[in-house]
C-alpha cells in the first residue's frame, strides 16, 4: 500500500505552549483515517501543522515521500493537500459561487488536475446550485459546511483533511454530509477526518488514531478497536468507561 501522507515525530508549539509531542501517523492511498480525541488533544493542531499553518521541521511531514513540513499553506494546496477548516472559514461577503470559484481559479492557475468541477459538485450537493448567488453568511450551518467541503474539493486534492465537519450541525444534516464522503473517496482521494463523535468517526473510516494531550494513544482498524480500548485512549488511564 502506498503511503501518501505521513508524519514523523511531529512536534508543534503555539509560542511557548507545546501542543504536539512526537506524533507518528500515516495515510495510505485512497484510505479514510479518523482522528478522534477530546477537546484540546491536538487534533486541529495536527492538521494545521500539516498545512503549514504552524512552524514545523521539514522532515516531520512527508507527502509521497517528499519532506514538506513547514511548506507555505498555498504551496501545500498546490501539492494536493486541501483542508475543510474548523469553523468552515468561508469568505463572507461573497456569494456561494464566488467562494467556490476562488478554488476553481487557483486550481486552474497552477494547472491542478482532478475530477472536481462545479457541475459535479452540484450533483453531490444540489443545494449549492440553487443557492449559487446567495451570500455565504446567510446560509444555514449545514449549507455552509457543504460550501467549505466543495471549496476544498475544487482545489483537486489527493489528500483531504476534514476538521470537525459535524460541529454544531443537526443530526440529519450530519448524516447528509457524511453520506457524501464515500463518493469523495471513490475518486481516490485519501482523507483524514477529525471528529468528536466516536461512532461517526468509526463508521466513516478504515483506520483510526486516538489522540490525548498531544500524543497518539491508540491506533488500529476502525472495525476492530473496542469501545474499552477507545475509552482508555480517549480519556487516559483510569477512565476506562465510555
Amino acid at each position: 500500500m502506498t503511503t501518501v501522507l505521513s508524519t514523523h515525530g511531529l512536534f508543534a508549539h503555539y509560542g511557548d505552549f507545546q501542543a504536539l509531542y512526537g506524533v507518528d501517523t500515516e495515510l495510505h492511498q485512497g484510505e479514510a483515517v479518523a482522528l478522534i480525541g477530546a477537546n484540546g488533544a491536538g487534533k486541529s493542531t495536527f492538521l494545521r501543522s500539516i498545512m503549514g499553518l504552524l512552524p514545523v521541521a521539514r522532515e516531520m511531514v512527508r507527502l509521497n515521500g517528499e519532506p514538506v513540513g513547514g511548506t507555505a499553506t498555498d504551496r501545500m494546496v498546490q501539492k494536493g493537500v486541501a483542508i475543510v477548516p474548523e469553523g468552515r472559514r468561508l469568505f463572507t461577503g461573497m456569494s456561494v459561487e464566488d467562494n467556490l470559484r476562488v478554488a476553481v481559479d487557483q486550481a486552474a492557475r497552477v494547472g491542478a488536475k482532478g475530477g472536481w468541477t462545479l457541475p459535479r459538485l452540484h450533483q453531490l450537493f444540489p443545494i449549492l446550485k440553487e443557492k449559487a448567488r446567495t451570500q455565504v453568511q446567510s446560509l444555514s450551518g449545514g449549507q455552509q459546511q457543504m460550501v467549505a467541503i466543495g471549496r476544498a474539493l475544487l482545489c483537486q486534492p489527493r489528500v483531504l483533511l476534514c476538521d470537525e465537519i459535524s460541529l454544531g450541525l443537526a443530526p440529519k444534516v450530519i448524516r447528509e454530509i457524511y453520506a457524501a464522503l464515500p463518493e469523495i473517496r471513490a475518486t481516490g482521494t485519501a482523507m483524514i477526518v477529525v471528529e468528536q463523535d466516536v461512532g461517526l468517526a468509526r463508521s466513516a473510516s478504515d483506520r483510526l488514531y486516538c489522540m490525548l494531550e498531544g500524543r497518539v494513544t491508540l491506533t488500529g482498524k476502525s472495525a476492530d478497536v473496542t469501545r474499552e480500548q477507545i475509552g482508555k485512549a480517549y480519556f487516559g488511564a483510569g477512565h476506562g468507561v465510555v
Partner: protein
Amino acid sequence: MEWFDALVQGILLGGMYAQYALGMALMFGVMRIVNISHGDLVILLSLIGISIATAWGLGPLPVLIVLVPLAVLMGWVLQKAVLNRVVGSDPLPSLIATFGLSIALQNLMLQIWSANSRSLPGHGLESQSIEIGGIYVGLLPLIVLAVATGLTWGLDLMLKRTRFGRALRAASADVEAAAMTGINPRAVYAMATAAAVGILGFAAVFQALRSTVAPADGPAQLIYAFEAVIIGGMGAIWGAFIGSMVLGISQAIGFRIDPGFGVLAGHIVFLIMLATRPQGLFGKASQ
C-alpha cells in the same frame, strides 16, 4: 443658477478626489492596509511627471503613458519591500511603517525638487472650457471626471469578475482561508497595491495639470482620500466614487457660502457622516 453652478463644480472637483480615493478604497477599504504615504506618493509621481515633461518636452498624454507603468512598479515594490512585512490583522504596523515612509518621502522630495510649487504645462488644455446649459465648464475637469468614472468602473469590474479580484476579496475576508484555497496572499496584495498606486499615476498627472504641487502637499490629499472612502463605505468601490462627489460638492457649496469655508465644509460633512452613519453610504453595518 449660482447654486447649480456650485453643484456642477463640486461634481467636477469630486472627479479629482475620486482619483485619489480609488487607490485608498482598494488598499484601506479592501485590504485594510492604512497607507499614510498615499498623498505623498501622488505628489512624488506628480513631481517625477513634471521633471519628465520638462526634460523631454513631453505633453500631458505622453507623461501619463510613462508615469502610470512607473506608478504600478512603485506600488509593487512598496508592497513587496515594506507592506508585506507589516500586513496582518493588526492595522497599526502598516500605519507606523507608512507614516515613516511619508516623512522620508517628503524630505526626499524637498531635497530633490526644493519647496517650490510646480505644475505640469498643459499646452492650453487647462484653460479651455465648454458651455453646457448656460454655465461654463472646464475641459480639463471634465476629462478628470470622465477618467475617474472609467477607473472606478474598471476597478469595480476587476474586483467582481476577474480571478485576481476574487482572490483579493477572498484574502481580505480571511487571509488564512485564502491560503488554504491555494492563494498566495502576498502575491495578490502586491498586485493590488500595484493597481492602487497605478491609479495614483493618473491622479498625479491631473493634480499637476489643474493645480500646483509642492513636496509638503501630500497629507492634504491623504485626508481627502480617507474622507471619501469613509463617506462612501469601506470596501465599496463605487462608494468611494460617490463619497468623493459628496466631498467635492460640500466643498464647492462651502466655497460659495464663504471662500474660507470650503475645505472646512467638506470636513464637517465628513464628521456628520461619521457620527450618523459610520459604516458609510454603501458600507454594511458591522455584525
